[in-house]
């Protein structure tokens, strides 16, 4: 573990350096344009707080409740570390790489390194009624939760040190470019050209592709690379604390209003419409998954309901600001049915160990949502997007292209990064560590006392 401690020392030093570096510049940024609206700013800040809360405690609980007693802390820890680590990476360079001036449609640059020029008082054209930093911090929370989602795939068997390195690389090399492609001005999949004008591109209102397809594909790569947990599939204990998972799901739902309706970047009709669509897709997703369980497994389960709710939320993410009630209902039904079939049948046949179904729910759900956006987007809801039902069949192709490109890039790069990190420090916990549990072996802590 000398490795780990060395990494830790590097952290501390790196942060001191970063603080020093950031200290040049930043102070008085050149003003952007657009009047700041206090209502919109309140909404975006609240949304940013909500999305932060989604990673910890919401997702942490959702995942933590589903693992075994001896690994729950390791999952909580991974969520906390992702939250801390990616937040720092984002202000240092992630935001600049994602949203900074475009280079060939592929990536931003270091113009906004250390938030240089990202004003706290005036707006940027990405969001003209709120301070630029409010937009930046809202986007930060998306960068945070994306790698956190992947945790579900390699839960219960990844060593902590290499995990940290992997996350830092992944967010920089996978998340930042993908975010740029889809949301950055001039990104290859973006609806905005480098000058900020509307062009044809993929529709992704709040991150169906950038967040969910991306995390899902990476999750699949992780599950395959790391291999199965000992005892998989029949000798594994069931979820150690399902109420935790339900609390987590409830809080995820709550936070998702910030995620999706917040992506309207203002407290307006679009936010309202996205809010309603989000809620309905979640509800219908839960009901549909529950119904599938009831029909095919004889009983509706709580875990099924909340999985369906999350799948519904995942699938509506790209669509929230583009679809009407009909679209939301359709997305919801699909997200209860399609990931259900995948998780219950396809996954089992394929035989890989995606411990908490990060690919099954986020990957598959995200793909369905992305495609559904291409189908159900209506100009009457949002002038920025029309889909198949509006007679614009090409949108579906754009959506497929975005999904395909993102999934392929994410899967491939993730696999490569895992190999790379594994050369430096073994990713997989030893048999003994896995048997004793990651809490004790990685963190020297136990989640619960038995006696006192």
């Amino acid at each position, binding site marked *: 573990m000398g490795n780990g401690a060395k990494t830790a020392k590097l952290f501390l030093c790196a942060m001191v350096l970063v603080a020093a570096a950031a200290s040049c510049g930043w102070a008085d940024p050149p003003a952007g344009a657009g009047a700041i609206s206090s209502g919109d700013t309140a909404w975006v800040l609240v949304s940013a707080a909500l999305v932060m809360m989604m990673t910890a405690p919401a997702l942490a609980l959702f995942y933590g409740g589903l693992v075994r007693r001896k690994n729950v802390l390791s999952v909580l820890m991974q969520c906390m570390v992702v939250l801390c680590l990616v937040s720092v990476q984002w202000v240092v360079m992630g935001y600049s790489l994602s949203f900074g001036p475009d280079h060939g449609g592929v990536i931003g640059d270091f113009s906004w390194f250390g938030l240089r020029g990202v004003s706290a008082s005036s707006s940027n054209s990405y969001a003209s009624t709120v301070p630029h930093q409010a937009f930046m911090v809202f986007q930060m929370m998306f960068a945070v939760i994306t790698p956190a989602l992947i945790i579900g795939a390699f839960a219960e068997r990844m060593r902590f040190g290499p995990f940290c390195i992997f996350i830092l690389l992944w967010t920089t090399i996978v998340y930042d470019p993908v975010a740029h492609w889809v949301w950055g001005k001039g990104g290859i999949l973006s609806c905005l050209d480098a000058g900020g004008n509307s062009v044809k591109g993929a529709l992704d209102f709040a991150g169906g592709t950038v967040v969910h397809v991306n995390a899902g594909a990476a999750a699949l790569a992780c599950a395959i690379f790391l291999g199965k947990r000992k005892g998989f*599939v*029949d000798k594994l204990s*069931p*979820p150690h604390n399902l109420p935790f998972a339900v609390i987590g799901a409830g809080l995820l739902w709550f936070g998702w209003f910030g995620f999706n309706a917040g992506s309207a970047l203002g407290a307006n009709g679009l936010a309202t419409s996205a809010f309603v669509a989000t809620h309905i897709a979640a509800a219908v997703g839960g009901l549909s998954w529950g119904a599938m*369980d009831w029909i*095919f*497994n004889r*009983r509706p*389960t709580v*875990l*099924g309901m909340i*999985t369906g709710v999350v799948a519904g939320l995942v699938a509506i993410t790209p669509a929230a600001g583009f679809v009407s009630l009909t679209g939301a209902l359709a997305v919801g039904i699909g997200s209860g049915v399609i990931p*259900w079939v995948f*998780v*219950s*049948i396809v996954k*089992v046949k394929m035989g890989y160990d995606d411990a908490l*179904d990060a690919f099954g729910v986020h990957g598959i759900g995200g793909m369905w949502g992305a495609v559904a956006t291409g189908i159900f987007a209506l100009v009457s809801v949002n002038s920025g997007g029309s889909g198949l039902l509006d007679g614009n069949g090409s949108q579906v192709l754009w959506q497929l292209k975005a999904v395909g490109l993102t999934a392929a890039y994410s899967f491939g790069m993730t696999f490569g990064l895992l190999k790379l990190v594994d050369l430096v420090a073994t990713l997989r916990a030893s048999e003994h560590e896995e048997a004793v549990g990651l809490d004790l072996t990685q963190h020297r802590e136990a989640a619960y006392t038995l006696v006192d």
Partner: protein
Amino acid sequence: MKYIIAVIQPDRLDEVLDRLSEKEIHLVTVMPVMGRGRQKGIAEVYRSHKEAGSLLRKVKLEIAVNDEFVEATIQAILVGGRTGNIGDGKIFVLPMEECIRIRTGETGGTAIG
């Protein structure tokens, strides 16, 4: 002296404790356990994955008694614990050689009660 161990249904615990009290058997140690027995466990299902699910929640009682109380103890447990359904559980009687009260250091039959 005997050490009596009984595994019962969780929802019979209060009843059994009452029956024991009626027979002046007040001292009992109780703990939650999981049991595999003739009663078929209900197979749990998590995201369509069916667990073996053979273990059911039970409660275990342990009661140290002097020989003359053995019969009464067994009777109390039988009466309080019986529902007539599979899964009602078992009583095991083990021999015990010594009993000591920690507070006083008393031993044997007087320490037991």
